[in-house]
């Protein structure tokens, strides 16, 4: 049995169903991310794990113990909130030691643990500061230390980086991941930021309208989206309307071009229309070598984005964007140029 077992939970608020039949098994020490747009149900599931909401149906088991109806204060979970939620009347040390004080730990035990946590988040010098005397990033690190001080079974992170600056976000997410690995703590992270989810997680659960769209490792989710929603939500994708020519050889007609995919077309029939999806970075300039699709396109726009250059082209009526790494020695095409593009067969995805 997995360390955290969520079985067929549902959550209804009057007429509205926020979560439909959600199940997931999470192993000890795993870092799981719930990813999806606002209102997809990710926070509701997290709140059910914390005990703030009770599932309408289903069960939640932590380490072999059914906690579905156990009150929050008896679940032994740690939680970090988007708004930090540090107690304004308490110093950093008092905030970190609050849970231990509630658990009636001895003063010396609290002191030792607080120092340990402060050293872990590298804020030893700020023990006597009040929350309002610190930056957002520092406050969130204190919130993380406070959540970990009681040695919780599960760590819940509710969009903890959303209120921070871009640079601090990146450094703090790396810090969170390092700490999570060092402590081997089972972690559930909620975010709507795909980059965050892809960079930090062992597995990602993509949610939409209270339902799971896809669960998998970040590379799996990104490279092989199983649904149209996942494909459009994660990263940038070129969508091409096509018609199946031959399911056996994987040939699909797009305008005047015929593309070949090595992905199975089991659910489709010859002559049926379908949507093809190709990542911009999967397209290269020139035909390339090996078994590849070769396309003739006309350049519409060249956008310099720093480390990459995005080139927008068109193939008849279809728009196709590609990303190339910025190389000062490489000559970029100009608007109106006719270019030859290549794309590996396995990178042509067919969406359901």
């Amino acid at each position, binding site marked *: 049995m997995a360390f955290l077992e969520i079985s067929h939970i549902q959550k209804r608020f009057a007429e509205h169903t926020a979560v439909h039949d959600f199940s997931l098994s999470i192993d000890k020490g795993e870092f799981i991310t719930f990813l999806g747009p606002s209102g997809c149900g990710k926070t509701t599931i997290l709140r059910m794990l914390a005990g*703030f909401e009770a599932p309408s149906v289903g069960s939640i088991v932590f380490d072999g113990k059914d906690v579905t109806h156990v009150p929050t*204060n008896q679940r032994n979970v740690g*939680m970090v909130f988007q708004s930090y*939620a*540090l*107690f*304004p009347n308490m110093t950093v040390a008092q905030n970190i030691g*609050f849970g231990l004080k*509630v658990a009636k730990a001895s003063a010396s035990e609290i002191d030792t643990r607080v120092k340990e946590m402060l050293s872990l988040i590298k804020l030893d010098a700020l023990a006597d500061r009040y929350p309002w005397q610190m930056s957002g990033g520092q406050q969130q690190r204190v919130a993380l230390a406070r959540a970990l001080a009681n040695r919780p079974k599960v760590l819940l992170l509710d969009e903890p980086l959303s209120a921070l600056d871009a640079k601090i976000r990146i450094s703090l997410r790396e810090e969170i991941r390092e700490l999570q690995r060092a402590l081997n703590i089972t972690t559930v992270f909620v975010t709507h930021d795909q980059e965050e989810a892809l960079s930090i997680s062992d597995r990602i659960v993509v949610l939409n309208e209270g339902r799971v769209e896809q669960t998998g490792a970040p590379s799996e989710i990104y490279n092989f989206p199983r649904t149209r929603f996942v494909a459009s939500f994660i990263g940038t994708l070129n969508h091409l309307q096509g018609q199946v020519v031959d399911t056996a050889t994987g040939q699909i007609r797009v305008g005047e071009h015929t593309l070949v995919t090595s992905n199975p077309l089991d659910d489709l029939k010859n002559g049926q229309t379908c949507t093809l999806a190709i990542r911009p970075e999967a397209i290269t300039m020139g035909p390339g070598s090996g078994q590849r699709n070769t396309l003739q396109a006309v350049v519409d726009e060249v956008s310099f984005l720093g480390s990459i250059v995005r080139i927008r082209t068109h193939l008849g009526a279809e728009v196709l964007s590609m990303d190339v790494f910025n190389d000062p020695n490489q000559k970029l095409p100009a608007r109106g140029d006719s270019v030859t593009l290549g794309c590996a067969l396995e990178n042509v995805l067919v969406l359901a």
Partner: protein
Amino acid sequence: MSTHTAKESRLGAWIAMAIGCTYFLLPLIATFEFSLRMKRGEYSFEAYKVVFEDPQFQATFGYSIVMAIATIVVGVLLVVPTAYWVHLRMPKLRPLVEFITLLPLVIPAIVIVFGYLRMYNSSSFIPLTGSERATDFLLVCSYVTLSLPYMYRSVDTGLRTIDVRTLTEAAEVLGAKRATILLQVIFPNITSAILSGAFLTFAVVIGEFTMAALLDRPAFGPYLQLIGANRAYEPSALAVIAFIVTWASMGLINVFGSNKHARPTR
């Protein structure tokens, strides 16, 4: 041109303020001046001396202070958990609760006290007017009702400055129970608001007349009325003392209004 207009408007503001100050301060200065004239031909604090030496003043003032403190304690214990619960679990009920707490401003005190006398007279099911202690308790309850608009508004304003729900959840997830959350997380973060409500309550209770007079309790309000009806200079001295008590309460609200530690989290 714009500088000229700005100067004009500033002058207008000063004039308005001067008129306002004169309107408020002139009667007060006149009262104070009159209170110093007890001895013929010279200014003295004789009226104040007489008042302070009057055993009835000490008794009634002391009684009202005790009643005010009891009212504050009961009011805080009633209002803080109620307002907290409304913020946390029933935010939609906030307008209704606000309306209920404002009722004592609309319903005259005499109506409330007649209601009490009808409900709790010595021949009723709960004969609270049957003994002095029970009547004191009834008076405290009536003062709590009377001060409800001030206490609730202060506490509600304090709760609006903190993220009640998230702080509660953060404490809950750390293992805290509701009582611990209220005492260690919510109370300390709205101390200044509670103190504001407390001082306003104190100011209201200390000079209250209707409730105390109709419940026949020896409070400062009825004493003020009694002295006012029978003496010349002492009522003025008492009015000045009452003003000082009220202003001291207001001053303390300002002192405690700036909480040195707590800042809102959002």
